[in-house]
């Protein structure tokens, strides 16, 4: 019996070999141009973050600050409770992510694996909410949160984000690609819905869950408008709000803004580097599976 594990090996003829030199040069030149264009703003940001307040305005002429001021980074922490902002951003984005993943996964299971009357219609209704711009929802959300006594609190920052129609939609699409015979096998093996959800469907939907978690975390980590209208207490401010402190009516402290935003960027970049293969998968999810 041929009992070798079936491992697909694909060889594309010509792959790995040098193609026509001219076309390759053109491709690399184009890619380099894109790369540089993308990198310039960041380099510029780093330079500004190291300049003095007076040098910043001259930077377009000099191209490089005459005196480097790494102390700008320390100054950010002295001027505002920046560590607290960091914590707030992590705390809020973390909780929103955890809650959203749980609620969306459960809803997605109900919409993809459980047969119940009116399922497709209710799902369409869900999708319909995606058509409403987020800004339009600000006022009713604010009223609700106010009514629930969550104004100016972590609760108010977290609870409205604990559920998302988009996340439900994404995970549902992912779960639809998992064969239903697995549920059936598990049901015969003795599992009820909860077991099937936690031990079969959820582990298999892991790539989708991770993508949702990344999207969700990054989105909330960067969220600005909702915290702006909801939070009055300085100690509840998230990072994007914190950056605003340096741009007040008394003047704009560009080097400090740049230093602070550069530090604020570190977690998303690290997350991207660690999990970028899942993100790529997530983008393919929409493209291929439909």
């Amino acid at each position, binding site marked *: 019996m041929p*009992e070798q*594990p*079936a491992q697909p090996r694909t060889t594309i003829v010509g792959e790995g070999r040098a193609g026509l030199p001219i076309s390759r040069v053109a491709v690399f030149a184009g890619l380099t141009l894109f790369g540089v264009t993308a990198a310039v703003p960041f380099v510029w940001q780093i330079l500004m973050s190291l300049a003095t307040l007076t040098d910043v305005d001259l930077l377009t002429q000099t191209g490089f600050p005459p005196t480097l001021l790494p102390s700008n980074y320390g100054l950010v922490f002295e001027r505002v409770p920046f560590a607290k902002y960091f914590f707030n951003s992590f705390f809020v984005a973390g909780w929103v992510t955890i809650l959203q993943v749980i609620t969306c996964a459960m809803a997605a299971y109900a919409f993809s694996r459980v047969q119940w009357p009116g399922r497709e219609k209710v799902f369409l209704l869900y999708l319909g909410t995606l058509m409403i711009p987020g800004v339009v929802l600000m006022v009713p959300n604010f009223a609700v949160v106010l009514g629930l006594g969550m104004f100016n609190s972590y609760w108010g920052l977290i609870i409205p984000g604990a559920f998302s129609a988009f996340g439900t939609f994404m995970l549902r699409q992912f779960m639809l690609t998992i064969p239903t*015979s697995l549920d059936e096998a598990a049901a015969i093996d003795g*599992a009820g819905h909860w077991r099937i959800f936690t031990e079969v469907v959820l582990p298999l939907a892991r790539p989708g869950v991770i993508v949702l978690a990344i999207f969700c975390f990054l989105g909330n980590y960067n969220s600005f408008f909702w915290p702006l209208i909801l939070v009055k207490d300085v100690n509840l401010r998230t990072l994007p709000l914190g950056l605003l402190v340096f741009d007040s009516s008394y003047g704009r402290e560009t080097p400090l803004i740049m230093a602070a935003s550069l530090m604020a960027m570190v977690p998303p970049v690290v997350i991207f580097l660690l999990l970028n293969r899942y993100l790529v998968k997530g983008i393919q999810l929409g493209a291929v599976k439909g």
Partner: protein
Amino acid sequence: MAQVVLRNVGKVYDRKVRAVEGFNLDIRDGEFVVFVGPSGCGKSTTLRMIAGLEDITEGTVDIGGRVVNHVHPKDRDIAMVFQNYALYPHMTVFKNLAFGLMLRKMPKEEIRRRVGEAARLLGIEQLLERKPKALSGGQRQRVALGRAIVREPQVFLFDEPLSNLDAKLRVVTRTELKNLHQRLRTTTIYVTHDQEEAMTLGDRIVVMSNGRIQQVDTPLNVYRRPVNRFVAAFLGSPPMNFVEGTIAREGQRPVFVGGDWLRLALPADQPGVAADLARHEGRPLVLGFRPNAMSEHAAGKFAPPGGGNALRLATTVVEPLGDKIDVSCQTPAGQRLIARIDARDNFPAGQTIEFFLDPEHVHVFEPGEFGPNILRPPA
């Protein structure tokens, strides 16, 4: 182990589409029953109703003396092997086998013993730490089988378990399955669209079409005595030949007349048959005979007393199979027939040749796809 009894079982989807109708069957304890039929005939639906994966619209399903219509699949004491195996991709082979036992809160020691035993039986002990992705098709099939065995259920349900294997492996696994059943003696219901699989595996086979049972009998009886034209055409490869004609009388003997080229004296010595034939005299009928009921030699069973069983046919294509050859022929009326005869070198294609028909192995059907077999001797 248990009996399975289906009474008037029916399935209607969305109050419109009827998938199964009036399904009655008694499956004995330890029996191996095969549901066979073309796709869409309702065989898988029936199996899934027994498993509890589909609601039963009408009738009752009884497993081991208990009506299970509203019993959850996990409480029916059955195990099922799926066409795509349905192994949990994120679990090792061991966990795949043990999952059902863990859910039943069986002691760890007992789980290890049962999994070990099943793995030994199937020769997959060295694979227990692997994930399904790292297994070949045949190995996955065995793991799926193992998952059913460890549960020691009352009934095994198989839903086309061999159709994802290549032809060679399918035949080997088929034999192993039969061997396994002979050792375990667990009541087994097996669904397939492959008539060869049905013939080789089943103690009894259930031929289905359009949601209805056409015939239930042992493989050889179904092959030899098909109740109607559908069953006759479905079982056997190459399929049975059919020729339209009528029954006439020559002296005392009934004769099947097909156009001006076929006059076949029918055997009418069995009780009741002569009367049956007489009743159909002059009406349009269909003669059926299998390719191996033809020969190029008028000898032995192909040489009935009085003769009258010769067919002159134009050969078109000759396909050697080893010890036999399949000869495609054309009747003077332009109809295509297939003869399976003993192999010999240089069999001529494109010539008119005389063939002889074994009159003991012909069937006469009423017209239509499901026309009853009027020559079928009573069982």
